[in-house]
């Protein structure tokens, strides 16, 4: 799958402003409100990443706490000129999960007879990064759009079933779905600019 969602467009969006970067800068100055805003934006992607890495909810929750403690401690080391805040936060979250993984008792692995054909480390890291961006972008969607997308993609509902479940016209479901996808595309493209 192509990870780069950027594509030429007739009317490019306004120059990207790294709102997350501004929040990190405020956190560096000790702004508790900015920290809470950053937390709300990123807690789900951080948790998803940790859960994927660690495989159990308790450890993942601890990794989330460690991630945000590290963000609070290290916000002043963030350099916006080196790039946006999302990859910086991703690195912190990934390191927190890796640290927790390393702290576990070592497991003696058996050497397989045949090479594993599953995705390698690079593909794994790309998948994590993609999931991070998508989960982060979902947080930005209006609740009405996020709701229909969640039901369609992860609830296994047809659009008619979504309409019936939510008690809204089928046309509204279609409009919200398309609008949500377009907004997601914008958000994912914007991050890569």
């Amino acid at each position, binding site marked *: 799958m192509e990870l780069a969602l950027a594509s030429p467009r007739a009317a490019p969006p306004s120059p990207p402003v790294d709102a997350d970067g501004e929040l990190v800068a405020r956190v560096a100055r000790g702004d508790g409100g900015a920290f809470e805003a950053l937390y709300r934006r990123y807690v789900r992607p951080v948790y998803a990443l940790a859960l994927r890495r660690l495989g159990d909810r308790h450890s993942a929750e601890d990794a989330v706490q460690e991630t945000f403690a590290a963000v609070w401690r290290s916000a002043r080391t963030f350099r916006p000129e080196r790039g946006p805040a999302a990859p910086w936060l991703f690195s912190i979250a990934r390191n927190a999960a890796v640290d927790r993984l390393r702290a576990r008792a070592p497991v003696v692995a058996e050497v397989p007879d045949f090479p594993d054909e599953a995705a390698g480390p690079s593909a794994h890291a790309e998948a994590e990064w993609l999931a991070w*961006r998508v989960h982060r972008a979902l947080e930005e969607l209006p609740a009405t759009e996020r709701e229909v997308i969640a039901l369609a993609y992860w609830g*296994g509902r047809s659009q008619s079933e979504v309409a019936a479940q939510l008690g809204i016209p089928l046309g509204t479901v279609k409009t919200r779905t398309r609008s949500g996808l377009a907004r997601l595309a914008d958000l994912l493209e914007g991050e890569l600019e």
Partner: protein
Amino acid sequence: MKTPDFDALVGDDVGGEERARLRRAHDALVTAGPPPELPARLGQPRASTRGRLLALAAAIAVAAAFAGGWVARGGGEGPDFTLAMRGTPAAASASAELDVFAIDEAGNWPMEMTVSGLADGRYELVLTRGGEPVASCGAFLVRGRTVARLNAPYRLKEYDGWAIVRPGSDRILLRTSEI
């Protein structure tokens, strides 16, 4: 999990580049999978996450102020204050206690640290600012449970805690826990 049909979702009245854009967003959603349900305890940032270092800095400042009064009263033999240190995930089974004694006339804070759970070797106690190591309080050798005498020749209120690292490394192995 059944993957939704992109054509059914978007219809056939969107074409060209816009359809390709929507398709990429669709593929990204399918690949990413659903975000997990958030456990209740992650619903809000824990006070300890945000306030840990502030609390610690405040505690050190209070302790330092208390130390001033304690010295003025003529002092004693016990520590002025004691801080617990916990292992980070890099040294999860390690722990330490840091006894900080009264500041001397020259501005030194004598300390005695009891550490256990670290692999044998050389380490360094550092003061942190913003959670990062910034000022050395001396190196020490560990062999099993170890008691090391160290010194902090600094104004403590300019820092927010202590940490233990390997000499030359910024990777924190233990740090003062929230109090």
